């Protein structure tokens, strides 16, 4: 299969990779069958019915309804198999399993900035252990980028102004390409790096190897204090703003709008554009923090709010 310098098939290192490859092989088989069928028929007809003195009368054939039905129905049936197969996998891959650890990634021209919840930061590199699901939450500081790990068969655009995510569980230790797949300007091709899939023990060692870094939630808590958020958002709800305890994932009742689930996008919007969704019972007095906080800062505050508990239940804090 492999010549020294001519790989023909990509490495595979995630739990979902096999499913994608199997569908790919099915598609290849169907494509090869039809291409061979068409090419053979054309070749045979072209030879057999070539114009020559002994065969110069074309037969007057105008069409055949049963044949038309047949070659409409068979491709339709096959393509429906492909659709359901591909859509099924896509649907499965869309939802991260419960308990997946979250890694925050910010794309900017032309680098990937990553931060683990435990605090360790990386640039253009991602270290993960095999055998544990991870959810990557993507943001962009400038233009659209796309986080692409071919060995995981996964790709997701990082879109400025919103959060997107993907998840994976690596299953084979090794070093794999990380690419930016969405053209993002001059050095698009250099916005690349490596994903290191490690054995769990090795990963723990790596994780603790960072020098004195605080967790993302701790950094977020500091920002929360420094930006003055805590002046209004008291944990017991007595302040001028609603409490953040148990906020993440809970249903928020809004003034004059249908309720929303407090996800990353909601928290981000509430910081940058507070008047967009005002919690019922509170005044629209919060100033915007647009321009005062970086994409990474936003992610840290989100991590902090997550640490205060989810779905209405208070958490451990830090």
């Amino acid at each position, binding site marked *: 299969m492999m010549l020294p*310098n*001519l*790989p023909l*098939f*990509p490495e595979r290192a995630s739990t979902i990779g096999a499913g*994608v490859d199997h*569908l*790919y092989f099915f*598609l290849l088989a169907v*494509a090869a069958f*039809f*291409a061979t069928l*068409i*090419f053979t028929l054309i070749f045979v*007809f072209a030879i057999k*019915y*070539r*114009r*020559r003195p002994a065969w*110069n*009368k*074309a*037969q007057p054939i*105008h*069409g*055949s309804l049963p*044949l*038309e039905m047949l*070659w409409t129905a068979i*491709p*339709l049936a096959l*393509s429906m198999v*492909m*659709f359901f*197969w*591909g*859509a*099924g996998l*896509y649907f499965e*891959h869309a939802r991260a399993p419960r308990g997946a650890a979250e890694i925050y990634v910010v794309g900017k021209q032309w680098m990937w900035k990553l931060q683990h919840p435990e605090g360790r930061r990386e640039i253009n590199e991602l270290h993960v252990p095999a055998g544990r699901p991870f959810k990557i939450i993507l943001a962009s500081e*400038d*233009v659209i980028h796309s986080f*692409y790990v*071919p*060995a995981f*068969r*996964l*790709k*997701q*655009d990082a*879109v*400025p102004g919103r959060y997107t995510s993907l998840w994976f569980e690596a299953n084979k230790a090794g070093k794999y*390409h990380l690419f930016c*797949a*969405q*053209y*993002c300007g*001059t*050095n*698009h091709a250099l916005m690349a790096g490596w994903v290191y899939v490690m054995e769990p023990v090795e990963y723990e060692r790596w994780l603790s190897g960072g020098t004195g870094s605080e967790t993302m939630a701790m950094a977020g808590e500091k920002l929360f204090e420094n930006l003055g958020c805590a002046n209004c958002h008291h944990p017991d709800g007595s302040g001028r703003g609603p409490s953040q305890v148990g906020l993440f994932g809970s249903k928020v009742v809004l003034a004059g709008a249908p309720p929303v689930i407090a996800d990353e996008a909601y928290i981000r919007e509430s910081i940058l554009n507070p008047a967009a969704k005002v919690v019922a019972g509170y005044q629209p007095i919060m100033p915007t923090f647009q321009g005062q906080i970086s994409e990474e800062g936003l992610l840290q505050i989100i991590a902090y709010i997550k640490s205060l508990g989810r779905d209405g239940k208070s958490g451990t804090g830090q």
Partner: protein
Amino acid sequence: MSEPTENYLNAGYGLKSWLLTTDHKRIALLYLISITLLFFVGGALAGLIRVNLLTPQGLLVGAETYNRLFTMHGLIMIFFFLIPSIPAVLGNFLVPMMIGARDLAFPRLNLLSWYLFVGGSLLAIVSAVTGGVDTGWTFYTPYSTTYSNSHVLPMAAGIFITGFSSILTGLNFIVTIHTMRAPGLTWFRLPLFLWSLYATSIIFILGTPVIAITLALVGLERIFGVGIFNPGLGGDPVLFQHLFWFYSHPAVYVMILPAMGVVSEIIPCFARKRIFGYSFVAFSSVAIAVLGFLVWGHHLFVSGQSIYAGMVFSFLSFLVAIPSAIKVFNWTATLYKGSIAFDTPMLYAFGFIGLFTIGGLTGLFVASLAVDVHVHDTYFVVAHFHYIMVGGAVMGYLGGIHYWWPKISGRLYPEAWARLSAVVIFLGFNLTFFPQFLLGYLGMPRRYHAYPPEFQVLHVMSTAGSTILGFGYLMPLVYLLWSLKYGALAGSNPWGATGLEWRTPSPPPTEDFEHTPVVAEEAYAYSGEEAEQHV
């Protein structure tokens, strides 16, 4: 057959007689000259791209130049060559001739459409000469509106203006086909080329305004900072992708439908048989045009679009594959028990079917959600759309040029050279683009000026193929020009083809037909006797 005394070519010789002509045949030639120039400019850019990719770090140019090369290549080839190619050249020449009319419904509008095309092309060339555009032909926001320092505005203006030439051409074709058909030429006697151009014209009229508005919005945001696409200004970058692909996906069918029409003319002629399943081939063109408007979201599977929207668009994308499959099966069945000759147009038609089949089948891969997540924005997609737009559309265009060249010029080209060109292009094309499927599944992203070294062997193969392909494209340029002076006289119907255009001298007189023809039979009424005559 003696040299025709009076025809559209010798009706007037001055520059004015060309630049102010309202003769659809002369306008077709004006288009032919303009788009041929642009094709070779776009081709030269492709050549530079391929040479640069010979080494992992880039052989010739750096990132900034490389990004301009692939952007300008895409823009010129799509907006200034492929979209106008068959409709504006062969369509302009043939629509009136195939229906027995003397011109299109609006001859002066037709001339205006050429001037709009030239105006738009000049703006594009100004933008290229003054430094080029580096956004990719897709102009994704907010890069194109806020971050790019390149000449986005003149290019967008050029495409905006050229769009009106498409709209006017589409309008002209629809009105002409509706109102000017010769007596007896009912809808189901129309040559299939006209069905395909009719479907194409619908897309021109409905789709082109959307790209024009979208580019106008890009301009507004770029000049005045109106927040439409840039989230920093309150806009939505993904909105741009919806608007852009609402036109640009149907635009792919603008490129391929006319080529399918050409092939539907060539195959019956050289198989000496009526096309198999006329009405299925005809209605599949309309089905492609209609369904083609409903699949744009398959370009957004990894953009953050809702997964449910992704599923709907995937489903519809599989549906649009069916009419294409029906066409391929019908062309193949037309060969059955035919009397098949291997003249140059037929070789191009075979090449078209081969490459289009591969392009169409790989379309199933990218329509399939989970596989597209992996191959999206990789060389797999690059290979897929080149198989459709170059392997399919350009093969069809060249097949049509070779088929109708005797009618257009009154001369025959050297057959051996022409057959060789079809073979060289077919082989060169496959060597260029087949390795790119492998690169894509391996994970090589598109629009990279530098790449990891393990991809080099496949890139070198691709570049080698592109050299052969380039020679292949130069060959027709040389021998077709040569034939204008030295080619044998063609006579009115060198292929023994049916169709009204073959019932008038080559080159045709300015008024196309001396007497308005009357149609008494179906299209492609090839009989055995005609086959005998042409043995």
